[in-house]
């Protein structure tokens, strides 16, 4: 492969990896920015998205308690498109219920209590899935039509699904951006971020936009679960594994900033892809950087935070 091809391949892989981070981080960031609520259970929404998506799209052979209770295969088998439609709606509802019954009573409690509560919740959700479906890994198989490789200039063949994934993410990013920047709903949300009390004094019932923001954030995590699920083995710990990088994206991008979340996500994705694929070749030795691929994103985050504690696109005041 030519050098240019190598660069293009790193960029594509980076965008694909970054897309998952962006989808999860966007929800985290708008919830944190507007509602000032820290959601450690956001990874659990990703987890729910993947499992529900798998159950809608396929019929899977289940383990765990479900197997003990006499189910061998479970799932609707309606296909992948159905999963892409149903899961966001389902997780949206889960998000709304979560806002109403779990987050809202905790808005007045200290940050640490919010973190602890949602952390506990994340464990509960993860354990429910582990008990029901067993701890083993499932494979979320894509339909034939999108799992075939296509020819991309410079690189050669590249899995079609990964390209679609990047496309879906880009479309969602634009949609959410337009929603926040150019609608009345977005105006109230942005005003609430700046000064929630003032918005209330103007006679606007802010709890309704808030619940929607939470639902949208949750739905985005759900979509991430469906589109990202097929790329990796599906097991109960995927939620927490995607949550930590997503948090990093939020922190380095700047809380509440959508563009920050996108920038941070792409940056982490590119870093990871670069380290995975790059091998340092000198006349004397060659050293593959791939063991550093996971470590690298944390180092990058550390460097950014040391130089700009409020994040790349965050306002200084949020960082204090």
């Amino acid at each position, binding site marked *: 492969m030519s050098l240019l091809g190598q660069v293009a391949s790193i960029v594509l892989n980076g965008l694909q990896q970054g897309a998952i981070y962006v989808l999860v981080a966007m929800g985290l960031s708008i919830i*944190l920015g507007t509602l000032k609520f*820290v959601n450690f259970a956001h990874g659990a929404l990703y987890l729910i998205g993947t499992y529900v998506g798998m159950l809608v799209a396929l019929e899977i052979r289940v383990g765990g*308690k479900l197997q003990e209770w006499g189910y061998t295969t479970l799932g609707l088998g309606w296909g992948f498109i159905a999963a892409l439609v149903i899961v966001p709606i389902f997780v949206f509802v889960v998000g709304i219920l979560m806002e109403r019954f779990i987050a809202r*009573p905790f808005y007045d409690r200290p*940050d*640490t*209590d919010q*973190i*602890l*509560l949602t*952390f*506990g*919740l994340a*464990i*509960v959700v993860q*354990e*429910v899935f*582990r*008990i029901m479906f067993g701890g083993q890994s499932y494979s979320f198989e894509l339909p034939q039509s999108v799992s075939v490789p296509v020819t991309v200039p410079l690189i050669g063949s590249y899995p079609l699904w990964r390209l679609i994934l990047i496309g879906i993410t880009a479309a969602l990013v634009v949609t959410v951006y337009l929603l926040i920047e150019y609608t009345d709903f977005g105006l109230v949300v942005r005003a609430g971020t700046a000064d929630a009390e003032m918005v209330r004094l103007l006679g606007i019932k802010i709890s309704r936009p808030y619940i929607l923001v939470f639902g949208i954030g949750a739905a985005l995590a759900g979509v991430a679960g469906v589109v990202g699920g097929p790329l990796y083995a599906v097991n109960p710990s995927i939620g*927490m594994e995607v949550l*930590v990088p997503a*948090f*990093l994206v*939020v*922190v380095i991008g700047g809380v509440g900033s959508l563009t920050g979340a996108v920038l941070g996500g792409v940056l982490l994705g590119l870093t990871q892809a670069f380290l995975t694929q790059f091998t340092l070749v000198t006349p004397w030795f060659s050293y593959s950087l791939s*063991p*550093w691929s*996971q*470590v690298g994103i*944390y*180092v990058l*985050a*550390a460097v950014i*935070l*040391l130089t700009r*504690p409020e994040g790349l696109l965050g306002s200084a005041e949020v*960082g204090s």
Partner: protein
Amino acid sequence: MSDDARTDGGTTVKNTTALRERYDALKGEESTVAVVSIIGLLAFPWLFIEAPVVSGFLKGYESLASLILIWAIFAIGFDLLLGYTGLLSFGHAAFWGTAAYASANVSAYLTGSPLVMVLLGTVIAVGLAWLLGYLTLRRGGIYFSILTLAFAQMMFYMSSSVLATYPGSKTPLTNGENGFTGVSLDPLLGMFELNREMPSILGEFVGTWHYGFIAVFTFLAIVIAYRILNSPYGLVFKAIRENEQRTEFVGLNVWRYKLMSFIISGTFAGVAGSLFTIHSQYVPLSSLYWTSSGEVVIMTVLGGAGSLFGPIFGAAVYLWVENIVSGMPNIGAFWHLILGLVFVVVIVLVPDGIWGLPDAVRRAWGYISNLGGDR
């Protein structure tokens, strides 16, 4: 979190006041704490393993008793940070795991003396706590929690790949996914085999040198934590928890106290991690994973953050459920779910933890009996 519980406890019943005062005075003495911990640590194995009725229900065994004490030390240290300084770290696995690996390396390549292992393991943990504290404490509140989590995960990934062997050789440093297996222990002070029973009555009732060794560290942890918390220095920690800005305005260097609190907490985690190596003679990679950080968070909060004995109690409950309840028929498979649900319930209803339950009940009772009263 529970310091002010006694003052707003509602009604006072007159004829018990004198008794109550004597009890409170005794409760506040440092020597009382020391004596109570010694008695507790000596009686614990017997109660847990041999005592009639109680042990039949608890089904304890000595190795679990030692493990509980180790995690208790960890939780006490964690509570200094969360319960007293008000900082919620999600990355304490970094200190626990690093100390465990460090002491394992000491035993494999340097000396198997348990005391040296604990000493060097702790020193490494302190150094790491200094570094990570310096990086993570730049941002407060939720960012601190996220950053500690992130850096601990970084340590995890480094240990799983890059640091699996010493750079440029095949000698295992963390041994990656398989965990470090080459731990070899020498007798304590060159005389006492850790897995032998202690002499005479101590051996009869308490158990092996192994338990004794860990119990001594637990005792020291309790007494030192008590001393720190009741010193003017510890008072500043509580002041930071209550109101950081006001503490700053009084003229105290908040940043320095926070860093120190973080380091002290990391020290406790380091001692506990080193003891864990001695206990299990094996260091799994998961000791650096976020689940270990999560476990100590749950133990501390479940038992009662902001109290000295709460976290110890929390550690005991957690490990008991993890090791004993998980083996029970029917409910065994649900042990982790049960802990998660109890944890959520505790946070919603009793933020002071199980240890703060009596105070919460007393407060509720005082509130109820005041309802028809003189308001």
